[in-house]
């Protein structure tokens, strides 16, 4: 397996086009093993598009994407499935199955992929709920009976159901109150430490960038315009970065 220099995701020269609008234009990006990468950019810049392209939900015009050293275009369907078992995805709206309970939602991937007893499935489900900070009592509720923050947590628990090595989080703290968002960042950090996760996090939340992320990549004009630590971002001369990291809201976060 070609996992040199520890890049778990390797995106090379990727172009994505919808009709005549070019959303991603020759984009390069590496995500290293064990890091939390915060992915920012103006609204509509294509952050979600890149995430969905890496996962394989959006077709790309050209370029090459490797995850765990496997080129997903060249991979056979069994190789692809093996890769899919090693990642977990938290969608922006949670995307919980509305006709299944929390218990069934979390157990769904394990029930499909592993032949283990119902007892173990139940115990692991409780373990995941405890890890994401929920009480086991919510297990038999339906998604429509949960609050926004609980939906995000259950969705995270489902993303972690098979103990993935890589987790994609699409705006995990949007729609949460600042305290809830702070707890969620803390949770992601803790899980990253305990489970040794690599996290790819699309976010708009400056607090998340400061407290949770090891490295930040910025998307603009279909390319990565900067990648590095918070300090690198603040030192950058790029006008959008200047505004984003040194603007009024950013100062409020630091203060």
């Amino acid at each position, binding site marked *: 397996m070609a996992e040199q220099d520890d890049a778990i995701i390797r995106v090379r020269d990727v172009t994505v086009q919808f009709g005549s609008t070019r959303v991603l234009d020759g984009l390069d990006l590496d995500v290293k093993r064990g890091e939390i990468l915060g992915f920012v950019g103006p609204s509509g810049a294509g952050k979600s598009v890149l995430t969905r392209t890496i996962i394989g939900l959006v077709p790309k015009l050209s370029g090459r994407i490797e995850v765990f050293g496997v080129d997903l275009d060249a991979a056979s369907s069994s190789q692809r499935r093996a890769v899919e078992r090693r990642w977990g995805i938290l969608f922006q709206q949670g995307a919980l199955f509305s006709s299944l309970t929390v218990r069934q939602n979390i157990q769904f991937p394990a029930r499909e992929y592993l032949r283990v*007893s119902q007892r173990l499935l139940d115990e692991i489900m409780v373990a995941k709920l405890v890890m994401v900070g929920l009480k086991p009592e919510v297990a038999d509720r339906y998604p429509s009976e949960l609050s926004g923050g609980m939906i995000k947590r259950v969705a995270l628990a489902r993303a972690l159901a098979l103990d993935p090595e890589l987790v994609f989080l699409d705006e995990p703290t949007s729609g949460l109150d600042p305290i809830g968002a702070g707890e969620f960042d803390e949770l992601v950090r803790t899980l990253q430490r*305990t489970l040794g996760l690599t996290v790819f996090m699309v976010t708009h939340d400056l607090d998340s960038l400061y407290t949770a992320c090891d490295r930040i990549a910025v998307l603009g004009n279909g390319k990565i315009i900067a990648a590095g630590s918070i300090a690198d971002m603040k030192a950058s001369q790029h006008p959008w970065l200047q505004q984003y990291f040194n603007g009024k809201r950013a100062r409020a976060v630091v203060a």
Partner: protein
Amino acid sequence: MHQRRPAGLRGRQKVSGDPTLERIAQGEGLALCAAGNWTARFAPALERIVSEAEKLRGSRPHIFIDVSQVASLDTFGAWLIERLRRSLSDASAEAEIAGLSANYSSLVDEVRRVGPAPRVASDRLSIAGMLEQIGRTVAGIGGTIIGLVDMLGAVLAAAGKVLIHPRSFRLTSTVHHLEQVCWRAVPIVVLITFLIGCIISQQGIFHFRRFGADIFVVDMLGVLVLREIGVLLVAIMVAGRSGSAYTAELGSMKMREEIDALRTMGFDPIEVLILPRMLALVLALPILAFLGAMAALYGGGLVAWLYGGVDPEAFLLRLRDAISIDHFIVGMVKAPVMAAVIGIVACVEGLAVQGSAESLGQHTTASVVKGIFFVIVMDGVFAIFFASIGM
């Protein structure tokens, strides 16, 4: 630190990396040495190993679990080790986990907080339960009828309000729905009724010919199409085509809180959403029923000519003798009433949708089934009514 093997190496033979739990006697006590990958991929094997080892409970005074040889550990492995530790512990002696590396100790601490899983409430089969079910179903039927009457009242009240303040009438919306349920339904309705007319005519001629009564097929076709089949068939098609669409539209608006949003802005959802839809349906069904009846007569006439040898002139002459305007009126009077029934059922079901996709599906199905059922019931009521007034 997470060295996992590539996929496809899941043979039955012991490969290095398969999880193991060796038992090593240490004087009075026993050490259980875990090794290999204790991860989700090996969960079935791990579960077997652990339930085997759980039987050792109480066999020795002192048992501990050594995890220093474990190559990789995740939630599955950590929990199974914790479960083993719990089941080996008893009142006298607590089993211990030894050799835990710093990397994994936080994970093991995490699963230590796990309590027992809440039980799934299971429905047991019992006589009381079955009686309860019957009672709930009967109450549900009552609830359905009350819901329909409630909606009928609300729609009439909204219509009354619109009559008093004609400016609040939503003409654009009504025209839009009229296009959806009437104009766009014309091709399929005309095609199906045309075919049904052909079939009735062909069957009639085939059987009447034995008595030399071919020409009476025109009487049968005329009465059947204008009085019953035309409107009933079209009503069933509209219930399937437009009733289901209404339920799905209103239901998904309900799911996404759009109806609540309307209400908070001071609009009455009945007036804004339901009245235009109802009105469009009540206007559309007579038009479709008329077109359908004409298409069925045309189809029947065509088959009578080509298959039965009844030429068009004779067909029309016979038709004029066989039917009166009464037959046509009976058919047309039924149409708007059936439209109202379909619309009311569809809207009630749409507003009853709960949060899940499954609920949307259930109510859409219920909308079509109940719509068709009530259409047929209404047809029966009309048959009794018209018979008693001699039409």
